[in-house]
């Protein structure tokens, strides 16, 4: 098992909350229970779905996913599986919150940095958009925009994110999406030397730091809706040696000037917004780019690449019960058409092979997915 392992030495990166023996075992229990739910229990539900799907007459419905869902909801073990799946997520946050709260003072002390390379701008009057406040994304209590004046929610998201991704997104750095976005840039525009880069919906900066590492001469910015998350992102980036300027902003309409960036990108942000916001974010990324600049938007695999009804239903359940506000919208739109409508040229849509290091990774981009976590959906366009 890569990523999170039962060895304290492997748990460390500069700011991350370090678990005690018992806290680590508790988090590993959550991880293993998630794997049990996904790899042992879910395949049986998939087989049940296959049998029930065969009983639905093809002409009887325009919405086969809804029809299958109705049938599955009559199956007792399906409901228990769904409940258990959600409970694992709640256990995850509870376990991580205990770990973070225990060392709150140490984390706050670590975040007091004398001469930071980057900066942090928190607008106290910022109002988070409705799709953020409607429900707590990923069931993280308090939500992404939570701000109690501390960095603790950011610390929860960092450690929780690594457990949530089951270690498959770069272990405790959780940075493979950012590395992959930069690898895509190097794949399609290897000669571009960006002077300014913006990460939209940067969270705690896991995908922002790779941009600073890949282009150390560039001025890198990250924006997000969460005050606590940005405080943590700033401290985390400084401890990792990355000079990044974080600010609390809505990616639909930022305060940056027209044509002020060479690269604007987002990593798994669009499915956590709304159909309207998605269009607005693409347009904003277009507005911010200088001539010759590139926009890159990375997402989880699109629904039509899943290939069967159960996978579509499973994704729909994930969206509803794990509070992913724009899952279906973001994973079923025609990105090529939307990017062109936003004014981009040289528009690409496809799958970029997951990169562990953007500079040294194979520059593989094509029409087909290599599977979840082995490649990421990417759309990109030029100004």
């Amino acid at each position, binding site marked *: 098992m890569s990523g999170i392992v039962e060895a304290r030495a492997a748990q460390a990166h500069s700011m991350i909350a370090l678990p005690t023996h018992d806290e680590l075992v508790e988090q590993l229990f959550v991880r293993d229970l998630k794997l049990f739910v996904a790899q042992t229990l879910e395949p049986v539900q998939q087989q049940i779905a296959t049998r029930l799907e065969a009983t639905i007459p093809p002409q009887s419905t325009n919405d086969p996913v809804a029809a299958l869902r109705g049938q599955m909801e009559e199956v007792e073990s399906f*409901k228990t599986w769904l409940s*258990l799946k959600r409970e694992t997520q709640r256990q995850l946050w509870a376990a991580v919150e*205990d770990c973070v*709260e225990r060392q709150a003072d140490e984390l706050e002390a670590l975040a007091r940095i004398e001469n930071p390379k980057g900066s942090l701008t928190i607008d106290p009057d910022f109002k988070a958009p409705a799709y953020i406040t*409607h429900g707590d994304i990923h069931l*993280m209590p308090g939500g992404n925009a939570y701000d*109690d004046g501390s960095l603790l929610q950011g610390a929860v998201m960092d450690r929780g994110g690594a457990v949530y991704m089951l270690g498959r997104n770069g272990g405790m750095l959780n940075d493979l999406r950012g590395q992959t976005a930069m690898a895509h840039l190097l794949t399609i525009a290897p000669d571009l030397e960006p002077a300014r880069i913006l990460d939209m919906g940067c969270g705690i900066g896991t995908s922002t730091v790779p941009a600073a590492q890949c282009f150390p001469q560039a001025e890198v910015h990250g924006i997000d809706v969460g005050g606590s998350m940005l405080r943590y992102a700033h401290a985390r980036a400084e401890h990792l040696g990355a000079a990044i300027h974080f600010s609390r902003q809505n990616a639909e309409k930022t305060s940056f000037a027209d044509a002020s960036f060479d690269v604007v990108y987002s990593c798994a942000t669009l499915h956590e917004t709304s159909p309207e916001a998605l269009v607005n974010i693409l347009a904003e990324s277009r507005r911010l780019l200088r001539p010759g600049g590139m926009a890159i938007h990375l997402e989880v695999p699109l629904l039509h690449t899943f290939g069967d009804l159960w996978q579509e239903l499973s994704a729909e359940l994930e969206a509803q019960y794990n509070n992913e506000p724009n899952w279906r919208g973001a994973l079923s739109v025609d990105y090529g058409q939307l990017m062109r409508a936003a004014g981009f040229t040289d528009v690409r849509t496809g799958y970029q092979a997951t990169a562990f290091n953007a500079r040294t990774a194979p520059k593989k981009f094509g029409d087909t997915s290599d599977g979840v976590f082995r490649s990421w959906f990417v759309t990109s366009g030029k100004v």
Partner: protein
Amino acid sequence: MTAQRLPRTPKRLDAIPGRSAHDEQNLAMIVSLASEVTILRARLDACERLLIAANIFSPHAVDTFSPDPAAQQAREHMRLHSMNKIFRPLQEAALADLAVLSQPADPETQL
């Protein structure tokens, strides 16, 4: 005990069709208990390994341990205590059923 500074209940938990609040509470408690047992076993394992590494006892000392009569009695008491604690709801439900069946017949409801 550390004071909780962060919220614990997420906003928006959609109901799962066919699952009662009671079902969800029971499941959450079972998962929490399984988590606690897992932590406890890992901690016990860590203690054993540390004691072996410190040459306090041999690698098979626990598996070959034979309690003396006093220890056996104490351990039987612990097991019984656990049974009563864990299966109390079943005992209560059975006693409630028995109580209903044991009530004298109400003459007004008899035909």
